């Protein structure tokens, strides 16, 4: 196998793995906070769930990046493209923004979600504000995803 294709696959692998690790970490923290809340007030489950899943978006961004890369190197068409070493590096680098930012931003966003869930305990009617505060962190994952997609768009295989 050519080095190029290995690098491209490595790109897909880290684009998916790192944000998914971050999201899983964030969701577990928020989930624990939510369990505590729901054990006292089960009727707040819906809102707590909403806050818990927010940092899960990064994992999905990673997933779609991995699919984009796989499609670009022709893994779905049955005929894998001939990826040069340079192109392989380009794809790997393009995957980095969402991989790294996705990992860290989901963890940080998870912390805001945890405090948001704590807020639900006292003022459930203000859930909307907690959601927005948590989503603010996600901005940077969105920007990173945008760069990754734009870069992958430019790279010619």
């Amino acid at each position, binding site marked *: 196998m050519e080095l190029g294709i290995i690098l491209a696959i490595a790109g897909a692998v880290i684009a998916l793995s790192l944000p998914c690790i971050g999201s899983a970490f964030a969701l577990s923290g928020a989930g624990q906070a939510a369990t505590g809340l729901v054990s006292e007030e089960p*009727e707040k489950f*819906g809102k707590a769930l909403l806050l818990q899943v927010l940092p899960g978006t990064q994992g999905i961004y990673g*997933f779609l990046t991995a699919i984009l890369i796989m499609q670009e190197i022709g893994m779905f068409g049955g005929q894998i493209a001939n990826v040069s070493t340079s192109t392989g590096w380009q794809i790997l680098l393009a995957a980095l923004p969402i991989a790294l930012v996705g990992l860290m931003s989901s963890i940080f966003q998870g912390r805001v979600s945890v405090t948001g869930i704590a807020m639900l305990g006292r003022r459930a009617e203000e859930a909307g504000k907690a959601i*927005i505060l948590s989503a603010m962190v996600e*901005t940077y994952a969105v920007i990173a995803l945008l760069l990754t997609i*734009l870069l992958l*768009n430019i790279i010619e295989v």
Partner: protein
Amino acid sequence: MNLSTTKIEIIAPQEESERLIEELQKAGIMEITHTSHEEVEDEKVRKWEARRAKVDFVRSFLSRNLPKESFVKNLINSFIFHPYNFSYKEIQEMAGSSEIDAVIRECASTEERMNKLAGERMKLREELHILEKFKNIPVTKESKNSLQNFSVFVGVIKKGKREDLISELGNEVFSFSCGEKEKVFSLIYPKGKEEFFQEKIQKYEAKQEEVFWNDLPEREIEKTQEKIEKVVREEEKEKKRVEDLISYLPKVAALVDFYEWEIDKSRRLERFEKTRKFFRVTGWIGENDIKLLRRVIKRVTNVFLLQKTNSEEGENPPVLLKNNGIMKSFGIVSGVYGAPKSDEPDPAPLLAPFFVFAFGVALSDIGYGIMLIGISLLMKKLYKGVDNFFNLFIVGGIFTLFAGLTMGTFFGTDLNAPFRLFDPSANPMEVLILVSIFGAIQIFCGLLIGAAWDIKQGDKRRAFGEKGGFMVFLLSMAVFLISGMQIFLFVALGGLVLLNVIFSKEKKPLLRISSGAGALYNIVGYFSDVLSYSRLLALGLATGIIAMVVNVVAGIAMEMVPVAGIGILIAGVVLVVGHTFNLMISTLGSFIHSARLQFVEFFSKFMEGGGKTMKPFSKQGRFVEIIH
């Protein structure tokens, strides 16, 4: 609309105070302010509180024992307020009758019995758990204590060590029995050999267990199981009894609200300022409601004084927002941010067109637009009281549909339609420019609103300086980017600095110039505001790509299963589940990020927010909605 509120005072005869406060609470148009903040604890309040505690106990007891609903239904219900409907007269009659007293007694005794049974059941289960461990151990409490020449040891040992212990004890032991579980055993050995046995037992770290069963464990297990069954049957009976009481839940909940209102009334009444013959109450009211208030008071007495009064120092008027029709739905979006100040515009109608446009671009798919409209219509039909919320998504769905048409995508598949205007996956820069232009227009509108508001408030400096400067800047930059004539770049920068200098708050010339230069620094902020709208492109691409991934996975599933019918079936399931999932997360993302663009990029140009919403003194219930 942000309706202006005004502070008023009412002075009326003392003997009418109770009737008047009842009418005020019924009308629900006035927020009462207090002159004293002391907690009042009078006899009446205590009486109502005791009543409320009783009915609230019944309410929570009955709602805990409601028949179980499906998971999805529970999830949806946790977002929706389902009030019980009563007329006020009905509630009053209930409070006067003794019908509920019997229910309270019944619930209290039932709960006591249920708790006792549940405790019993748990104790028996625990015993059963222990007994099951000692199955096949031929020792009972009696047999253990009645042997004269032998000692009995029943215990637990570490996994795998039991066989070692047996072999080490050899012939010294009289009888050795193994329990069904690997770790359990019993020993019978002659008295007088205690030392030897204790040493061995200690060596293998076996722990002695108390023998509490009077019969052989197997028999005891049977007996305990029977006992548990009996308790469970009793519990079923009690549950049946509760089921018969559940029909009282609406009434009981209504009474909780009723006593809450009575407590509220009594507390406020105590805090009124009083003379020997008159009392005075102050509060805030919407200016348009003063006439209505006059009519409300006239229902009680003709001897009264109602007039405007000055607010105290540091007291801000509460905010009274009122929107009709579809604008009510957009009030939900702006409500997340909080109320504007009393002298700021209501942002709901202002953000409406921008919010739905941003929402549509972030989803941009014909299929998802149709799905969103369909689901919203369905939810409106199935549930009451959700109209405002889902109307928002119907409008959002229509914009999603249109955005999808311009980009020619249907559930992630490219239609290659001739009417397609943009292709974000092949040419993302086009869409990036589009959303940036949209952002610039929204920011310009924000500045325009801010300037108009400033002028209305008499702050011309801010209107023409800060806001006018950036309006000139944005316009000239637009002309520069379109025409490419460099002169407009200078007009942009020059206009910005000049307007800020001319309309600066500062008096000294040097400070004026520095404030003009300071405006240049804010350009960075405006650029980042405009670029923030690029999230719409990213979200739109993400929606499209996830949809595409669902289609690809469905395609693979169909190819992999050679049997034609099953392959199509699996692909169908993947498509339905996948697209529903994508619609859910993408709608959530689109909603949140579109709202954020309003709060951060748009609102900051014309409002600060942080107003306190008016909370009229009313008969608004936690569980009940009064019907007239």
